[in-house]
């Protein structure tokens, strides 16, 4: 086995643009779920609306990416309001089902053949990236020689992405140490108690949904910039589930939980992927093809991830950095 490739590839992913995407998505979910107790299973929908908004402003209307970002932010807020109004008065599991349904509605409508002239159908959209790449200050690969390297484009996305992560974490920290954050945490514990103390629980939940959704929108922007394209497959239901896994690995209701979670998650996933890939590759693979071929090897990381999510939730629900006494998820 080639351990060098294993390490290099894993580090590349663990700090790379994809980890940034899931980190931002998980920061949003942390606000929703970790602090407020809202089960938003439609984070992929927020990401998709924002990503497509930014791209289409450029591809359809010929506007700048900046305006696209602004439109994406506005549409995300509108989406949060639309989802929040019918569901935030309901029980937690209703919100879960409605948000997951809404994300699926968004995905099916955007990817519909009917709108493929404007939205690209299943193929998605490209041809917007130039202005972003023009701003790229890096013109050759960056990294530590012999350990890990990123292409200039990737490193540019990473730079912007990790800066966004820093900003998002700072905002989360500022909010969560304030009385506002205290109300959110109280709602997570018992919303009737908070209501009995004269707080407008509904309004706080709505604000939480919007703010967490906006962090999801940032993730959507980074998805588009990372791949130089947006397509429906980037925003499938599983994306939200992966983001939850990221959050739970790092620890919910911890400001830096999603950051640690994203890095660890992508490191492990890539290690598994490369390891099984190597073990099934070549003429005389370590694992015989009758047991596992290379297609099956690519499934192993998802199998392990499902198993990992279950075990994590059962044996260490507070995540790696969480405090069990202060754990967000328990007997309700």
């Amino acid at each position: 086995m080639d351990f060098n490739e294993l390490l290099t590839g894993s580090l590349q992913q663990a700090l790379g643009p994809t980890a940034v995407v899931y980190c931002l998505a998980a920061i949003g979910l942390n606000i929703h779920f970790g602090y407020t107790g809202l089960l938003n299973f439609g984070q992929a929908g927020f990401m998709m609306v924002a990503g497509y908004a930014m791209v289409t402003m450029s591809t359809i209307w010929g506007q700048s990416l900046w305006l696209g970002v602004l439109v994406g932010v506005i549409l995300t807020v509108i989406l949060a309001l639309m989802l929040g109004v019918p569901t935030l008065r309901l029980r937690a599991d209703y919100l879960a089902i409605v948000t997951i349904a809404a994300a699926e509605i968004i995905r099916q409508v955007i990817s519909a053949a009917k709108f493929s002239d404007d939205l690209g159908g299943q193929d998605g959209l490209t041809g917007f990236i130039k202005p972003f790449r023009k701003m790229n200050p890096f013109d050759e690969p960056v990294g530590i020689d012999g350990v890990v390297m990123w292409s200039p484009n990737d490193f540019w996305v990473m730079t912007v992405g990790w800066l966004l992560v820093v900003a998002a974490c700072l905002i989360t920290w500022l909010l969560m140490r304030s009385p506002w954050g205290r109300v959110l945490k109280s709602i997570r514990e018992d919303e009737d108690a908070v209501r009995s103390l004269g707080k407008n629980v509904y309004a706080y939940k709505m604000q939480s949904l919007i703010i967490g959704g906006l962090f999801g929108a940032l993730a959507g922007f980074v998805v588009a910039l990372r791949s130089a394209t947006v397509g429906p497959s980037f925003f499938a239901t599983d994306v939200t589930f992966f983001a939850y896994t990221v959050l739970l690995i790092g620890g919910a209701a911890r400001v830096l939980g999603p950051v640690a979670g994203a890095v660890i998650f992508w490191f492990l996933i890539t290690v598994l992927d490369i390891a099984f890939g190597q073990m099934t590759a070549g003429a005389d693979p370590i694992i015989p093809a009758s047991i596992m071929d290379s297609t099956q090897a690519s499934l192993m990381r998802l199998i392990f991830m499902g198993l990992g999510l279950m075990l994590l939730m059962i044996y260490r629900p507070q995540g790696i950095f969480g405090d069990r006494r202060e754990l967000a998820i328990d007997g309700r």
Partner: protein
Amino acid sequence: MAIALRRGATATTALVLLGAVLAALLTVMAGSPAHAAETRCALVKPTDDDTISILGRICDRREKPPVAVPGVRVTVEDEAGEELGEATSSEDGTFVIDLPGTSIEHLGKSYTVVLDESTLPEGTKPEITSRTIDINLDNDQTVIFPIGDAGPAKPSKFTEALQLMVGGLVFSVLLAMAALGLSMIFGTTGLTNFAHGELITFGALVAFFIDRLPGRIEVGGTEITVIVGVLGAFLVGGVFGWLNDTALWRPLRRRGTGLVAMMIVSIGLSLFLRNIYQYFAGAQTRNYSQYGAVEPWEIGDILLTPKELTVILLGVAVLVLTTSLLQFTRLGKATRAVADNPGLASATGINVERVIGTVWIGGAALAALAGALLGVTQGFDFQLGFRILLLVFAATVLGGLGTIWGAIVGAFVIGLFTELSTLFVDPEFKFVGALLLLIVILLIRPQGLLGKAQRIG
């Protein structure tokens, strides 16, 4: 102890009874096999590969039974009018046109199949010379060109609606079976099970593996391999449900794991199982060896295949039986009592864990049956259950989470709405419509159609 035994016996009797009815009804399906006479119009078997094929047949309906019309040229065009493939009908009137490329490329597109009138035998008139089909599933598509006296060029909205109702009813009963399991499990344990879709897929897979076993199973000259497969799916599905509960959920309940945590565990389980399925069964769409193409009966202007009728009747029978069991047996009453208030039920001497175990067995068996029958009606792949999971959720929430009749009513609303909405909107938006309906209903009636409002404090 005596009571517990009696309760166990009731459960067993109920399951046996359910199995018997299942078997009886499935033989109806076997009673109408699709055997083609030589001059009769044959049906094409779907091809078992990754590509999408357009299958069709050209029949002269002036004869009874209709006879095949060979030697007719047929072409397939895409939306831009570009020709993608052609074929000529063979001796039995059938033709197969493979669409170039993989199935993914064709999803969501629509193609027009055109009949070359000049190649028709003299003195015959086609009722219709071109048909447009939308590719929504990665299944092969079947078109039929009846030849004869010119009929109405386009079916009326009413006929179309009736035809869609058939498909809607099939989907509804299958959805209802799956939803009933989900709802009962939610009702008794509070678990929102995101891995319920995998219980559905499990059924389709069990039936498939039984079907693929070497040899065929026959009774009195009629092959019943797939019927045995469906029955097997029902039974093994129940065992799988028991395993789910015993190995995972019961220990978690004992530990006092919270409901939200259990919900996330179920997401992990769903991911795990789905990829295990793909590992062993591959990613392609599968069909069973029987009932792939069954000749439909024409009732008025509506086409109804024996298998559709069987599924509807079987489904209704299973639903009636299950609800009667819940309504009238001791165990059923105990189940509803647990769903209402587990603490109180336990205090009155009901063995709550036993009830939950039975609910898992029954719920998973129903889901597996739904999966196997979905496989019979439309084919399946490893994502079958995951894809319809949201509709199952929609059905249960719509009717009222945790209520028995709610799940069934919700399933019929969703199932019929999904199909009938294609009268007015593009078929590619039919799921979107159903999910929107869910959100709208929650806005108006948060507790669902048949749910009761909660009391606070």
